[in-house]
């Protein structure tokens, strides 16, 4: 997870940069040439040689060495620029927050309330623009999922690659309860959350003794198991066909119908019936759920349980030595993280009115985890920004078609190079003496200090 670091806690120097931070051009060129060679090895097979069906129907080998040369040149130049540019930055050890960290922190103080204000007034700003509101709902869903996963990964330090399983469990729980037993959304939501939390504990038990990579593998498998069960238990889940006709949410019992008659939302409040009412309601619903997640997380961080999570992330053996019940601490992190995933899932089901296992694949887990890591593990504002950038950005680059993934991957590489600890890679003490001080994550290594 963490970038390779030298013992002093400075980011590992790329080749061609020595300890003092001075880049020697010759070494940088050598390093870039090496990178280009590796690139050639990869691209020669992937791009250079291509089998195609020829005019007579036989396979012919097409060679594209020109493209390979361009790609290798790009890698060479990119690596060269990276080495020389990183080499010019001097990394001085000090307890003062770094330049960017300080700036982001300062901005963060204004940014979080500003973001909240924009989020609260978005339906008014967009004038009911359906596309933007839908995008807002999507982004907020990922903000909520990011905040939920942040409890498990960011606070408790338990690397969970199967978080989407709880999202799926919440969605299916609500969908089945609503379609089979006629549960209303407000009844189905807590039940879906509790069920997801229950599965969180169930996953937690076998992985109590695992950490790091091993934990990641098992949670990854768990996510896949849930998806495969959803896909194959046709009698319950409908298999690949999914569940359709999930009731839309009502405004506390008042349905959003287009007729606008007595007992509907528009009729009761004397409004012109409009399809945007439901979208606006859904928007505020997910905003409320996301803010609830945030509020609970912030509150818990100041409670003994939240501090125990953070202590667990830092050093499990020390936790045991201090009499912290590690079992309860871990299970509660899994349970509470999973619960918010379940809430988000229930929301997803009622919003889409149709769910299928396709919505709960590993890539979703990966995106949510990327949001948490890019945002800076444990940082609430960072996660929100990362979700906005990742999900919103993904939409902005929709016109690029399949190159979108290229932009996406490139953006992740750039963020990790510039801010190896995430966008907001600092931790504000939950107990502070007088002035709060944040120390750049760059100065504090993972694990033992």
């Amino acid at each position: 997870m963490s970038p390779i670091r030298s013992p002093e806690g400075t980011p590992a120097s790329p080749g061609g940069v020595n300890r003092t931070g001075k880049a020697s051009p010759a070494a940088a060129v050598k390093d870039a040439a090496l990178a280009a060679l590796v690139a050639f090895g990869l691209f020669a097979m992937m791009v250079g040689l291509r089998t195609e069906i020829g005019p007579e129907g036989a396979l012919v080998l097409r060679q594209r060495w020109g493209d390979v040369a361009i790609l290798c040149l790009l890698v060479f130049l990119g690596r060269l620029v990276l080495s020389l540019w990183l080499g010019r930055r001097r990394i001085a050890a000090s307890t003062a927050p770094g330049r960017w960290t300080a700036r982001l922190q300062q901005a963060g103080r204004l940014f979080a309330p500003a973001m909240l204000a924009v989020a609260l007034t978005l339906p008014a700003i967009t004038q009911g623009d359906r596309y933007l509101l839908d995008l807002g709902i999507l982004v907020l869903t990922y903000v909520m999922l990011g905040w939920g996963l942040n409890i498990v990964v960011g606070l408790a330090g338990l690397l969970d690659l199967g978080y989407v399983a709880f999202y799926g469990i919440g969605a299916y729980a609500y969908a089945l309860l609503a379609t089979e037993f006629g549960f209303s959304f407000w009844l189905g939501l807590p039940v879906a959350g509790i069920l997801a939390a229950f599965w969180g504990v169930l996953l937690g038990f076998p992985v109590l003794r695992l950490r790091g990579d091993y934990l990641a593998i098992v949670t990854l498998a768990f996510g896949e198991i849930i998806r495969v069960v959803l896909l194959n238990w046709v009698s319950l889940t409908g298999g690949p066909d999914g569940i359709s006709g999930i009731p839309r949410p009502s405004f506390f019992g008042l349905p959003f119908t287009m007729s606008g008659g007595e007992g509907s939302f528009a009729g009761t409040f004397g409004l012109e019936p409009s399809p945007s009412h439901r979208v606006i309601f859904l928007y505020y619903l997910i905003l409320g759920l996301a803010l609830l997640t945030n509020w609970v997380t912030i509150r818990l961080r100041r409670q003994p349980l939240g501090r125990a999570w953070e202590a667990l992330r830092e050093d499990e053996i020390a936790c045991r030595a201090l009499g912290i019940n590690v079992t309860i601490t871990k299970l509660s992190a899994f349970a509470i993280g999973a619960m918010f995933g379940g809430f988000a899932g229930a929301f997803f089901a009622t919003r889409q009115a149709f769910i299928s296992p396709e919505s709960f694949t590993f890539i979703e887990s990966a995106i949510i985890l990327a949001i948490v890591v890019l945002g800076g593990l444990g940082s609430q504002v960072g996660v929100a920004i990362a979700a906005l950038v990742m999900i919103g950005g993904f939409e902005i680059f929709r016109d690029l078609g399949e190159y979108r993934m290229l932009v996406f991957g490139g953006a992740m590489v750039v963020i990790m190079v510039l801010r190896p600890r995430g966008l907001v890679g600092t931790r504000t003490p939950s107990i502070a003496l007088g002035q709060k001080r944040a120390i750049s994550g760059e100065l504090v290594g993972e694990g033992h200090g």
Partner: protein
Amino acid sequence: MSAPGDRRGAGHAAPQAAAPLLEVDGLSAAYGAVQALTEVSLQVMPGEIVTLIGANGAGKSTLLMTLCGEPKPRAGRVVLAGEDITGAPTHAIMRRGVAQSPEGRRVFPRMTVRENLLMGAEALTREDPTPQLERVFALFPRLKERLAQRGGTLSGGEQQMLAIGRALMSKPRLLLLDEPSLGLAPLVVKQIFEAIRALNAETGLTVLLVEQNAFQALRLAHRGYVLVNGRITMAGTSQDLLARPEIRAAYLGGH
């Protein structure tokens, strides 16, 4: 039990009248097939500093960890103040008034000094931690200067002070110290050992000290045990052990 003040300095005989605070009886422990401890028996009286010395891999740390419930012993008993705690879960043992400063210090690197200290009190007491915090600052004034600093940015000696201070926050009856001198400059070791001596003299805190630095440890402790390959081979008062030629040869570099 006599007043704690009169046991200042090395070599004083332990008060034999009182019941032991910690009694280990025939304890055996293993990691898989590897036998780490074989029928270890020792006693720690209230108000005593007892040291456990031995070479690398003798089983010293394993013994401390077994006392804390991990690994679970294969055989034998651990009795704390008359209560059998053999095989109890770690957090339950700690709740009975045991605190450990673990090997390698293990302070929480990204938490501030203050948070580190409060973590020591949080799981085990419901009292207001402020008075105990002040006592820790009196013992290690350096920690007070570093209060808002991250644990990971402290020097090794400060981290050791923090680890001991953190263990003291739960007001333990028995303090287990695992190699507090590890990797520290002699001057810092002296400071830390002086603090432990003062703590024991002033509050009568019982300490079980595991050390490789046998000379320093025996000078600090009242009594000592020598652990070789998971067995106790020698026991006695510190003065006794310091005088024995085989101890001098094996652990004190022959001086």
